């Protein structure tokens, strides 16, 4: 209980600090009902509703929550509500409902104690109010406790260090068979009379065509025999020769020999056109 009260005091402390009138900290809450009019709005904003206000009134007056003096409490509460009304503050409906409930309890307590519940035990009309006040106070303190728990982002951070390879590895992977499938799709879509058949031999001719073009792009022109690498074997020589013929046929490369028995040169067709306009 003492801990509860301590926490309640702390809550009240907070309310006090919230109350500022014309810029000045208002450190003393009223013992009686006089409230500087400008402060009322500020004070009421600090309450989370009628239960909160009631709790504060009870704790403020050191009333035992279990033995509430209904007359004093109801009068104080209703005076607050009336002041709010006079100040034309926007009054939440809940405050009026609570006022009605307090008056009802008070009037029932004035009745002779003959009211019995079925089991024959006495029923205190304040019981429901007390239950609600206790429950609310409990949640209010629990909320304070939650707010004090360490919170990710506020009191500690979780970690996420850099993973350097991710970017590179996220590049799409292509398998040779994907290319085959892509080619198949082209053919299927075309469904024309055009037929392409490319075997290994043709591919290596194509590869050498690219190789020769790259070489000529860098070198400009090349002695014909330099394009061949006897170290690669006979079939490589044949394929290189076929590639050159294909390049000439596609007019990508020119083969020139200035005079009989002079060295034969290969050069890019374009380069030739530009270098020797004649």
């Amino acid at each position, binding site marked *: 209980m003492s801990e509860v009260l301590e926490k309640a005091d702390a809550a009240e402390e907070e309310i006090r600090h919230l109350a500022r009138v014309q810029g000045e900290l208002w450190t003393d809450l009223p013992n009686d009902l006089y409230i500087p009019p400008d402060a009322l709005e500020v004070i009421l904003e600090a309450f989370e509703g009628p239960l909160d206000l009631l709790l504060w009134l009870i704790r403020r007056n050191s009333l035992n929550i279990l033995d509430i003096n209904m007359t004093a409490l109801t009068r104080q509460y209703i005076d607050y509500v009336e002041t709010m009304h006079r100040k034309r503050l926007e009054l939440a409906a809940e405050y009026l409902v609570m006022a009605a409930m307090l008056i009802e309890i008070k009037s029932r307590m004035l009745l002779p104690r003959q009211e019995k*519940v079925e089991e024959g035990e006495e029923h205190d009309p304040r019981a429901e109010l007390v239950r609600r006040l206790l*429950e609310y106070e409990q949640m209010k303190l629990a909320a304070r406790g939650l707010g004090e728990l360490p919170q*990710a*982002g506020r009191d500690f951070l979780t970690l*996420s260090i850099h993973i350097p390879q991710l970017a590179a590895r996220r590049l799409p992977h292509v398998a040779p068979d994907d290319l085959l499938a892509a080619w198949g799709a082209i053919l299927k879509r075309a469904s024309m009379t055009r037929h392409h058949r490319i075997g290994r031999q043709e591919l290596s001719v194509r590869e050498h065509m690219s190789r020769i073009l790259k070489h000529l792009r860098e070198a400009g022109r090349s002695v014909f025999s330099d394009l061949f690498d006897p170290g690669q074997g006979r079939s490589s020589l044949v394929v290189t020769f076929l590639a050159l013929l294909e390049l000439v046929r596609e007019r990508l490369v020119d083969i020139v020999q200035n005079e009989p028995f002079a060295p034969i040169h290969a050069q890019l067709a374009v380069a030739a056109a530009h270098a020797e306009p004649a």
Partner: protein
Amino acid sequence: MQNPLDLDEMKRVLEAVLLSSGGALTLAELKRVFEVELGNDFLRRALEELKSDWRGRAVELVLVADGWRFQTRPDMQPYLDRLNPEKPPRYSRAVLETLAVIAYRQPVTRGDVEDIRGVAVNSQIVKTLEERGWIEVIGHKDVPGRPALFATTKQFLSDLNLRALSELPPLPEMARDLIPQEMLEEQPGAVGL
């Protein structure tokens, strides 16, 4: 190379995976990291060892609701705040009270929250908590209007460094011993509340 996997190598891998994951990882997720099938006990032992290896550092390995994660110790926050001066928002009392009711009384409807707090619950409050990923609708109550039932999420526990709801601070004991016995018997609901 991974087979057999020794404890040191396993800890080395776990450390890298947990430091880079950006969130908590469950045992099941951590098991998936290894090619070989690992027993839970072996894995847990490695995690516990890793945890004590980090003792005394400014970063700690913790077990929360959604698994294991590394996080900075609270005493590092002043340093981290200087690097990143924008503070996360502090929640209003209204938000915290709504959260408390949902956390301790779940599953509850908005009407339940309003009954306990004695005021209407602003829909902005619910939205704030939903956007933070701390509460979610887990069903609808079978009464007219079928109001949504709210509960807290794993994220909520994890963000508050908790493994389970039972690790929430216990509800403050209300002045129960002072309540006249008759009253308690009359309204048994009051005890549980």
